[in-house]
């Protein structure tokens, strides 16, 4: 066993963990905002809007993230017009491509989760809000958003864990997050066991932290949805 290699390179693993967290937080942050808007429009009375959002979530939830990532990172180079344009320096950076793929993917899942939370809202609550004379904006802010977010909290927790795990795919386009670091060390030192075990343990640790955070959030904000005890 050569755990001393891991000890020597532990700083690199920490850098990797930092990038993993950075990717997760940025992707989730952007996706959260987008999903709230899309979820509110998901059951809009305008049929074309409803169908467009439905088609978007179906396509991005129905294909592997790896393909979406490769389509953006490798695929876009096929279009000469894009390569000549001013956006190319951004689109040829692996970091930007990974973030675009992650945001598009997790937004599709999160939109459906939030829209599902909204569908379980008793119609009486919206009717009551209207009866009080709330404007659509106030209704969204006071009634729809809190209900949507608390009702979908546990599913959203799962989605954030999925996103954390999905960041491991960033290693396939040269990014040095936890998995990338582990792969790099296996190649440099010819050891196959220790680096991947370390990577797995780091992910497990991060997952536990997330699970704990969402347990707390559910206890704090969604407790009113639980059946009463005693």
């Amino acid at each position: 066993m050569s755990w001393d290699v891991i000890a020597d390179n532990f700083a690199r693993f920490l850098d990797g963990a930092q990038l993993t967290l950075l990717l997760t937080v940025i992707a989730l942050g952007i996706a959260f905002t987008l999903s709230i808007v899309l979820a509110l429009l998901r059951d809009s009375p305008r049929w074309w809007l409803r169908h467009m959002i439905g088609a978007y979530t179906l396509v991005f939830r129905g294909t592997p993230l790896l393909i979406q990532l490769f389509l953006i990172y490798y695929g876009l180079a096929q279009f000469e017009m894009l390569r000549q344009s001013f956006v190319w320096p951004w689109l040829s950076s692996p970091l930007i491509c990974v973030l675009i793929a992650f945001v598009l993917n997790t937004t599709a899942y999160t939109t459906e989760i939030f829209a599902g939370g909204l569908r379980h809202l008793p119609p009486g609550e919206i009717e009551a809000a209207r009866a009080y004379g709330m404007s659509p904006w106030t209704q969204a802010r006071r009634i729809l958003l809190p209900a949507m977010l608390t009702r979908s909290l546990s599913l959203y927790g799962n989605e954030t864990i999925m996103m954390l795990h999905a960041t491991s795919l960033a290693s396939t386009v040269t990014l040095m997050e936890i998995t990338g670091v582990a792969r790099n060390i296996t190649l440099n030192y010819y050891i196959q066991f220790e680096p991947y075990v370390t990577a797995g343990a780091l992910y497990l640790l991060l997952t536990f932290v997330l699970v704990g955070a969402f347990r707390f959030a559910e206890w704090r904000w969604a407790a009113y949805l639980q059946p009463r005890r005693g």
Partner: protein
Amino acid sequence: MLSDYIATVLGAGWISLQLAFISLVLAVVLGLLGALCKRSGSRVLRFMVGVYTTVVRGVPDLVLMLLIFYSFPALLNQWFESMGSMYTVEFSPFVAGCATLGLIFGAYMTETFRGALQGIPHGQVEAAYAYGLGRVRTFRSIVLPQMIRLALPGFTNNWLVLVKATALVSLLGLQDIMFRARGAAEATGKPFTFYLLAGGFYLAITVLSLGVLVWVGRRYSMGVKELSR
């Protein structure tokens, strides 16, 4: 010329499907065993299954795949070497892929099946025993049909995620649709076309599976719908 590439890429879809089906069978077996262990009286069994589902669901698919494809054989070989044996193990990407996906989705299936088992009133099993039905017969005729109905939504979800997860095995070098798409992309200089083609294949499987599973769901909930009306 381009159509030849398209045929090769789509032809490899069969490998992806084989991988998905074998992994699914493994996952269902593991899931059933896991769910039965979690419901059993033995604390040791419950604890062990708990550790299994927690660890497997706490580590990314890709990392688990690398662990099984690279780390596990390396560990075995080190062990063989210390025993003074010349024997070395190596997994093929297909075997490692099936093992990993089976293990991962076995953990998800355990949770799905456990939830389904919980939804069946225990009185029904007691009644079956009281009528003199054996353990196997009770499971087959009383528990299983209801479990299928209750587990179907979770099962559908797990299957859809499993199909998409097979794309990862291309990273180990399995010549599946994703691997061939990559080859065709590099050979023709048309990466967008071929990754889109592969994406279309997965999307078609997803839509098809949803259709089939909605039909199965209708079939298994026939009795229930009539009762609730």
